[in-house]
């Protein structure tokens, strides 16, 4: 068993600082009314002298542009749960503690190439999500949690070293009742090493059984059962922007973080998603939704960010945006795919990505392939399909390279059509008479005609109604 503990000493502040730029001074307060005091401040605010413990009014005096937010403990719990979802990408055994996460990673070491690499990835991921964390590794759960609160970066890999590492730690870090801690201090113990040196049975009789079990669990001598976290089946996150965003830049920062969380959640579930919905809530509580459909299930946060950017650039922000909401429609469990030795499959995947990009910016109808239908009428002889669709129908007739959307009426001069100048009929007539079944019955004589300046046109003459010349195609 090897436990990694991630404790978040600045969780209250990180909720807000992860979605605001670093240069903006930010402070979080706790308490109410007269007793409200600054709990935590970001480095930009600290440089002005804003420290934990001062009153908000003093803080404003030190830094006029300071943004002060009251602590939101409900939000903090939700954040911890979503961090647990993200951490499930590294191991399936994740447990929540107070302002901390505990990961049991003995089974993941080989996949992540060793403890160092795993710790580095955890730290990098948390930095990208915007949380400050303190990491510790220990063979027992309680010890890992305790060491993560003491200092960042303590690593103990075997039980034998554990006692040695724990000994110099001060008594106040122990998670015991205040009365018990006072009792231990009264006995003359200043560090954990002193407590461990005392005879255990006598200590248990004097301080109570819970001290005995606590120290046993700390040293890994007694089993320490925990309940493991289970990820929610759906992903639904709301991110409150601390400062209202009137431009796209204000939203992008937060959006990126949200998408990273989704990516982490999906990798924890070994799943991918086929569609996303992004909601922008405005000041007057209305929400406008952006829908993003993907051609293939995917898990790539950067790609979604790019696609959403294209959609966001098209809309106009009529009001300031106060909150972002992200939810996913369906989660698809990823199935293992065989990689092909040659590049054909990879090209298909690249093509799908390119089509997604084109459709995101230009619209779903903008990129298409062609297919031939069996109809003889030229305007019905083709239809749009998804690019790459095979079609077997062949029409072996001379046709122009281009068709006009609406046939253009031409004048008649001595039996020949006129398009600028008189056209010379070269080949024809080809009689196309069809369409009695859908009301667009037509009987036309098609000719290939040459313009004196060289171009070839495809013209027809109506056999029935008006017996006029029309231009329908151009041989380009």
């Amino acid at each position: 068993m090897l436990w990694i503990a991630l404790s978040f000493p600045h969780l209250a502040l990180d909720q807000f600082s992860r979605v605001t730029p670093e240069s903006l001074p930010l402070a979080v307060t706790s308490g109410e009314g007269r007793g409200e005091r600054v709990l935590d401040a970001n480095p930009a605010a600290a440089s002005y002298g804003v420290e934990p413990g001062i009153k908000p009014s003093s803080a404003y005096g030190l830094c006029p542009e300071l943004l002060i937010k009251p602590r939101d403990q409900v939000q903090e719990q939700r954040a911890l749960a979503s961090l647990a979802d993200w951490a499930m990408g590294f191991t399936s055994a994740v447990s929540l503690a107070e302002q901390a996460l505990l990961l049991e990673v003995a089974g993941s070491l080989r996949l992540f190439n060793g403890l160092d690499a795993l710790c580095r990835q955890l730290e990098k991921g948390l930095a990208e999500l915007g949380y400050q964390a303190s990491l510790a590794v220990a063979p027992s759960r309680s010890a890992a949690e305790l060491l993560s609160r003491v200092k960042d970066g303590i690593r103990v890999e075997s039980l034998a070293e554990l006692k040695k590492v724990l000994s110099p730690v001060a008594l106040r870090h122990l998670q015991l009742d205040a009365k018990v801690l006072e009792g231990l201090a009264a006995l003359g113990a200043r560090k954990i090493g002193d407590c461990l040196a005392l005879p255990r049975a006598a200590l248990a009789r004097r301080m109570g059984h819970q001290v005995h079990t606590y120290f046993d669990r700390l040293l890994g001598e007694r089993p320490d059962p925990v309940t493991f976290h289970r990820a929610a089946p759906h992903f639904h996150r709301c991110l409150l922007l601390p400062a209202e965003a009137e431009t796209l830049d204000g939203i992008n920062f937060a959006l990126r973080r949200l998408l990273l969380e989704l990516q982490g959640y999906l990798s924890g579930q070994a799943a991918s998603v086929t569609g996303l919905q992004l909601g922008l809530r405005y000041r007057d509580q209305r929400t406008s939704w952006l829908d993003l459909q993907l051609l293939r299930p995917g898990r790539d946060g950067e790609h979604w960010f790019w696609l959403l950017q294209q959609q966001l650039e098209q809309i106009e922000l009529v009001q300031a945006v106060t909150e972002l909401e992200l939810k996913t429609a369906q989660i698809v469990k990823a199935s293992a795919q065989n990689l092909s030795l040659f590049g054909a499959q990879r090209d298909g995947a690249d093509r799908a990505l390119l089509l997604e990009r084109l459709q995101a910016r230009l619209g779903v109808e903008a990129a298409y392939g062609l297919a031939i239908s069996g109809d003889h009428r030229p305007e019905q002889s083709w239809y749009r399909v998804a690019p790459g669709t095979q079609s077997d129908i062949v029409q072996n007739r001379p046709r122009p390279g281009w068709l006009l959307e609406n046939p253009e009426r031409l004048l008649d001069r001595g039996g020949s059509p006129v398009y600028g100048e008189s056209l010379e009929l070269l080949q024809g007539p080809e009689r196309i008479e069809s369409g009695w079944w859908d009301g667009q019955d037509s009987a036309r004589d098609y000719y290939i005609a040459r313009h004196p300046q060289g171009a070839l046109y495809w013209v027809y003459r109506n056999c029935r109604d008006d017996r006029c010349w029309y231009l329908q195609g151009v041989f380009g």
Partner: protein
Amino acid sequence: MERGVVKLEQLLQRPDIWQANRPIQQDDRQCISSGYTELDQALSGGWPRVGLMELLVPQQGIGELSLLLPALSSLSQAGHWLAWVQPPWVPCAVAVQNAGVDLSRLLIVKTEKAADCLWAMEQILRSGIFAGVLGWPQVLSTKAQRRLQLAAEAGGCWGTVFSRRPAGAAMSVLRLQLLANAQHLSVKILKARGSWSSKSISLSRHVVDSALFSPFGS
């Protein structure tokens, strides 16, 4: 300072001096045969396999598509993908298929704005999955040409843009002017990278029109 006098003949022997009267021989991998022998000879091989080509046509429909169809068809039969961006009219699927282009590997992109057309062309050229791209942008500045040329080089793709008149200096690999009359289609090389010729080739109309009149390669 004294400099040695060098004879002109000695200078001309040096390999690092480019001489305009020596034609550049392109090898087969770098060109696509246009399907017309005189054109292949004038272009030392054919259309450029990688890079942007500009065709200046005074009026759409004088035969520019028929000029390119043999090459497009050979690319398509070899299994490559083609894309047409913002075509001036509706492409006739029957004619395109009869000319030898496989419809299951043809992508048509319709855009509204000129900026979107250039953007789509750039994305497709750069992607590396397409072998040939034809585009009809409304406006084409020198800067846009340069971007498309770089995108074509990055993606290893042959791109062609059709425009009415030249816009500034040519940033493309090849710039051709097409003129037509009832008997001939003349192709004038305004700029060809690596060569100095400004030849004009006259192709008989019958030869050009046969790309669409009868299926190519059958």
